């Protein structure tokens, strides 16, 4: 029996050691590791703590580049955007965070509303189109995320899709739609819908879709999975999920459809950043936010996360339509923090 247990344990140990040790560094980390960062004698030092509602997979390599370029050490805490916002709100005045990097404008709005963010200097704010930053200057958009209709290319072509998202309330779409009503991006979109079209039209749209018996998914990726698998024909998600999936799975039978002409379905939300009012490292924090808007970082977002860069002169990846072509509806993204009303509406219609 002794022997038997070794037979089990040994191969497992070997595999484990193999997996742990023979791994290579993260995809886009710069080739010259942090080893020679010290040699180039960074001009400034200090530490900045960032709470990131965007994952380490995305943000980690960028923060490493920042540290290398500036000599400022970055301590990063990663989590879901809403969790990080709730964390900051719970910590209140005692938050160790200097910078909050959020996946959507609503979360930044909620933290700003409690007076926990400080106003950013104009030289940062002015780099970004005013549609994509706080009108009161407490946060700035870093990358753009467009709402799209993703469809299965085996069953549909773009010509089959309606011009407006209101077209999907037609009974011909019954049983063919997927959505993720608990998802933050979806809820931001509904908030925008309420702002742009009014409560009644928003309710009309939600009831129309609900009448078509949509399949409910936990998030954008499961909804995308369902479109690729043919469980549903279309789903309402953000544009970059499919583009990222195509990197792993180039043959996935799905395509993005952008509704245009100021339709609420063309909402472009942002991931953005703000500096905490209680920050004791505000200088380093400001440098970090500036870095997120540098050409280098903006190109990183374009190629790595497939989002829209918001800095003038940096082009989006691939064959994405430009932000001007999409013609995103007129809306103050800060208002997207009014999720309470959206939640109430969704619950009232029976979706949540």
């Amino acid at each position: 029996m002794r022997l038997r247990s070794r037979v089990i344990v040994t191969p497992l140990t070997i595999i484990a050691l193999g997996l742990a040790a023979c791994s290579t560094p993260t995809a886009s980390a710069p080739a010259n590791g942090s080893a020679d960062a010290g040699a180039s004698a960074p001009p400034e030092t200090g530490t900045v703590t960032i709470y990131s509602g965007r994952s380490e997979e995305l943000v980690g390599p960028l923060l490493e580049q920042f540290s290398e370029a500036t000599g400022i050490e970055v301590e990063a805490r990663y989590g879901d955007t809403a969790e990080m916002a709730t964390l900051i709100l719970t910590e209140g005045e005692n938050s160790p965070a200097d910078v909050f990097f959020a996946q959507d404008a609503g979360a930044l709005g909620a933290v700003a509303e409690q007076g926990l963010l400080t106003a950013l200097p104009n030289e940062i704010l002015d780099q970004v189109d005013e549609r994509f930053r706080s009108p009161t200057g407490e946060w700035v958009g870093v990358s753009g995320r467009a709402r799209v209709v993703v469809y299965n290319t085996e069953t549909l072509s773009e010509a089959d899709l309606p011009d407006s998202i209101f077209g999907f309330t037609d009974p011909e779409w019954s049983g063919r739609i997927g959505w993720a009503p608990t998802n933050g991006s979806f809820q931001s979109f509904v908030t925008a819908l309420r702002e742009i079209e009014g409560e009644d039209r928003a309710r009309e749209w939600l009831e129309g879709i609900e009448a078509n018996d949509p399949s409910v998914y936990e998030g954008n990726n499961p909804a995308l999975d369902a479109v690729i698998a043919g469980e549903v024909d279309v789903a309402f998600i953000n544009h970059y999920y499919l583009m990222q999936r195509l990197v792993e799975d180039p043959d996935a039978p799905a395509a993005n459809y952008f509704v245009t002409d100021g339709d609420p379905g063309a909402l472009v939300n942002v991931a953005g950043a703000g500096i905490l009012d209680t920050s004791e490292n505000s200088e380093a924090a400001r440098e970090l936010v500036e870095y997120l808007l540098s050409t280098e970082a903006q190109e990183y977002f374009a190629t790595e996360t497939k989002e829209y860069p918001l800095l003038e002169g940096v082009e989006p990846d691939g064959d994405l339509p430009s932000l001007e072509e999409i013609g995103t509806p007129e809306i103050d993204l800060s208002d997207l923090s009014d999720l309470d009303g959206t939640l109430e509406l969704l619950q009232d219609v029976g979706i949540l």
Partner: protein
Amino acid sequence: METVAPPTAAARSASRTPAPPAWLIGAGVLVALLGLLPIGYLLVLAGSSEDALSLVLRDRTVGVLGRTLLLAATVTSASVLIGVPMAWLTTRSDLPGRRWWTILGILPLVVPSYVGGYAVVAAFGPRGALQSLLEPFGVTRLPELYGFPGAALALTLFSFPYVVLSVRGALLRMDPAYEEVSRSLGRGPWRTFFTVTVPQLRPAITAGALLVALYSLADFGAVSLLQFDSFTRAIYVQYRASFDPTLAAVLALMLVACTAGVLLAEARLRGRARYHRSGAGASRPAATVHLGAWRWPALAYCAMVVGLAVAVPIGTIGYWFIRGIGAGEPLTLVLDATLNSVLASGLAALLAVLASIPVAVLAVRHRGMLAATLERATYAGFALPGIVIGLAFVFVAARYLPWMYQTLPLLLVAYLVRFVPEAVGITRASLLQVSPRIEEVARTLGRPPSAVLREVTLPIIRPGLMAGGALVFLTAMKELPTTILLAPTGFDTLAVRIWSATSEGFFARAAAPALLMVIVAALSLGFVLRQERDR
């Protein structure tokens, strides 16, 4: 054959309750207070809410609550039905490859529900792997998985090992004398199993079932991926949508009330029986049952359970892995995260086992209101969603203990609150099988109570302590929400890695940490089982 009295009757007559030493009470109270801390936080928050009552009384809230309780009841029954035979086969029979089946029967515990949920959808979804296998037979769509059936399936598959682990410990320690008497008095093996073995297993089964029930109340990953509208999901929706924890706190308090209900039900089921021999003599290991031709259905049964609960998730992870390598995705560096996971979960396991000892000793050896209250209080943390526990500690530590905030010790305390019931249940069930006479003998020989505990009681229940530690280790390793909120900044664990990758849709990058987590879990189980046998 010196003891033939049914254990319950013997135990009642032998009942006497010496006053517990003060240090024991002190330690028990401390553990219980930690467990109650999140509830205190919830009460503070909910007290500041004006809409609390309207939220509680809303039709929808009541409906969700009912559905959640039904789910918990279903998952618990299914887990007992799956887990008890599995535990019996791997401890008492000559099932071929018992060791393997033992590890494989416990391993599903380490599958994080946010990975398991994906796996169940990928395998059994309307257009999942099973459907493509059946495609040639004209099956274009499987019956609806999303909602109750899917959530019940996923939760059962990844929580039935609670029952296996708890019951197998009891079977190993059980005095076979009663079964032998039953057989010698002419009862057949099946009747003996149901009338003698199962009643003796009752504390272990209820301990395991309790964990399953509370786990299914608190789980978020599986229910959300399988689109079942459970209470925990409602709590998360409230957090995410309003960035306002007060209404979420009201909902969480309702979950606490459910937990109290489950604990009461468990107390009734548990009864007041003791399960050690009342006379003189020591028990010896039970004889191995020869399965004969039954081994084939037994093997098929184990293969089916393990296939669903282990092969499906590992297959899904493997598919991510292969698809990622095919697309030229490099493996991500996970050595640090592995060490962090092992360190944090290992320390959490040690702490939880230590903390479970005073609580269990009080509950078993010094019955009464105080002991019962302390024991129940430790369960408070287990049924609460991790985010609630995490925020409670954020609230307290950021304000009052800034020097401890976002440090490893604080994370360990939060783990302790979340997972100590896993250890308490098993330690308690083990103690029930130890006769107090052994301790009394040591006392009469002049040893103080603390020395008796250390030198006599704990060595006897060591397998139970090891099993409890293993349970905490496995579940702490997959813990996510508290880790995200409370870990020292930059302290990555495998679970955080997996989540971070899957949340962005980088499934290939999630594969290596996920496989490592399963392998580390298997290794630790192998280690624990070996200790058990070396005794």
